[in-house]
């Protein structure tokens, strides 16, 4: 195939149909932007789950020296009570594993989290020791577990992070579904627009294609310029979409979740994630436009 002959034909075609090509580029850009957003939301959910997988567990706080308002804690938990609690956890069928977090360790972690001068006000013994407990089925058994242990002497309170995490996961999941639905709707629009553009282009160039057929050009030779036009427009749309996704992440997400991401509550999305999502969108665009063009030429245009 004489590449430059085909290519010059393609660009002539794109110029001739400039307005439709622009419409096509914009609509695929939006469609693929949402495809990318959906992929990005997916990445975020996966990262989130990974990050919190080992953290989705229960903290059983003992009583610290410091007098709290907690009615369960009238005095500091004794080592005997601690041992008894450990025994109880060990033999509990709901529990998969547990780990003792000493006051010393709690103090260290507290200091790290309250970075800077606030950390200086924290003293060893301010924070209670605790057991970090991993339940076999957190979702199902947490309520029963909490009710059972809250009454035990020496235990301050039972706590877990699942509610907060679930709320965040739900928000991201809705964003994902929203993106998927919009992506599908706009993709359908793009596909129709591609089919329509090709039909218009084919009728504009009827002269040319009928002469091509007459002098024995292969079917590929006749169809390729139309396919390439559609694929190039979609590819440009895909590149624009990568820009849109990046801008969306940089100006919207990074602003809204600036705090949480900085503190590591929400896993940060890297430029790499953006490129992967956008690149996948680009591939979707190229493949879909190629298939659409092919089918349109085979079944609706018949050059």
């Amino acid at each position, binding site marked *: 195939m004489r590449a430059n*002959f085909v290519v010059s034909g393609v660009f002539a075609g794109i110029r001739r149909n400039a307005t439709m090509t622009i419409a096509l580029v914009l609509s695929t850009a939006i469609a693929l932007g949402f495809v990318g957003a959906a992929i990005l939301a997916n990445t975020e959910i996966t990262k989130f789950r990974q990050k919190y997988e080992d953290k989705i567990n229960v903290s059983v706080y003992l009583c610290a020296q410091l007098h709290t308002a907690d009615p369960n804690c009238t005095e500091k938990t004794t080592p005997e009570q601690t041992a008894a609690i450990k025994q109880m956890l060990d033999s509990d069928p709901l529990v998969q594993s547990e780990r003792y977090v000493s006051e010393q360790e709690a103090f260290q972690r507290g200091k790290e989290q309250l970075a800077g001068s606030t950390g200086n006000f924290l003293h060893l013994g301010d924070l209670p020791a605790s057991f970090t407990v991993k339940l076999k089925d957190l979702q199902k058994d947490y309520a029963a577990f909490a009710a059972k242990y809250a009454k035990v002497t020496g235990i301050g309170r039972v706590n877990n992070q699942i509610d907060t995490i679930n709320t965040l996961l739900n928000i991201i999941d809705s964003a994902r579904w929203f993106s998927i639905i919009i992506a599908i709707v706009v993709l359908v629009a793009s596909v129709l627009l591609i089919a329509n553009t090709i039909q218009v282009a084919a009728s504009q160039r009827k*002269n040319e294609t009928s*002469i091509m057929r*007459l*002098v024995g*050009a*292969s*079917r590929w*030779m006749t169809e390729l310029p139309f396919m390439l036009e559609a694929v190039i427009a979609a590819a440009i749309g895909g590149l624009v979409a990568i820009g849109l996704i990046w801008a969306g992440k940089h100006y919207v997400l990074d602003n809204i979740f600036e705090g949480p991401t900085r503190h590591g509550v929400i896993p940060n999305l890297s430029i790499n994630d953006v490129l992967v999502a956008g690149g996948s969108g680009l591939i979707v665009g190229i493949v879909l436009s190629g298939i659409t063009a092919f089918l349109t030429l085979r079944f609706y245009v018949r050059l």
Partner: protein
Amino acid sequence: MIRLQNVTKVYPAGARPALDDVTFAVEKGEFVFLIGQSGSGKTTVLRLLLREEVSDVGLVAVNGRSLNKMPRRKVPELRRKIGCVFQDFRLLPKKTVYENVAFALEVINKSPKAIKRTVPEVLDLVGLNGKAQRMPNELSGGEQQRVAIARAFVNRPLVLLADEPTGNLDPDTSQGIMSLLERINRTGTTVVMATHDNNIVDAMRRRVIELEFGKIIRDQSRGVYGVGR
């Protein structure tokens, strides 16, 4: 080179057959006129030879290959062996003379080198060497038809089909086109020309196949237009 054997063709919309039990053969290097009134089936014969249509009954063969069962993907190969000109020239208005002729080679993947060599040659043959850079609308009808013939002939086809090529031209210009077709015929190319221009047929004294309502009513070597009527 060309063979039609008991060919009948009925268009889906047509009441009577466009061609009705037509049989004839054309040898390599022959020059044949297809004559008959408008609607007698001349164009249909040419369309069958190009495999733009397929016969309903009978056999159509070009260069020893049957077109009836030819798969679609083999059709381009067939058409590279057949050149074709029409009453309305069918040039691309936005391309120059040179580009119009080169186009026929580009779309069948000829090398730029071969194109550069053969296009001026064929423009020379049709007498348009000085007008290579003209646009079609800057040419007379006769010159436009010469471009169309150059485009049909540039790939050196075995057969040249011409469907009323002089239909839009005055007698003098037509004469020029006829001598060009004759010259092409002398290179060994088989020429089949549909026409109802009696002056041309009478002047040329070539084989004449006459159609009426889709049937062959005369097949005569060195014929004239009016005989038998």
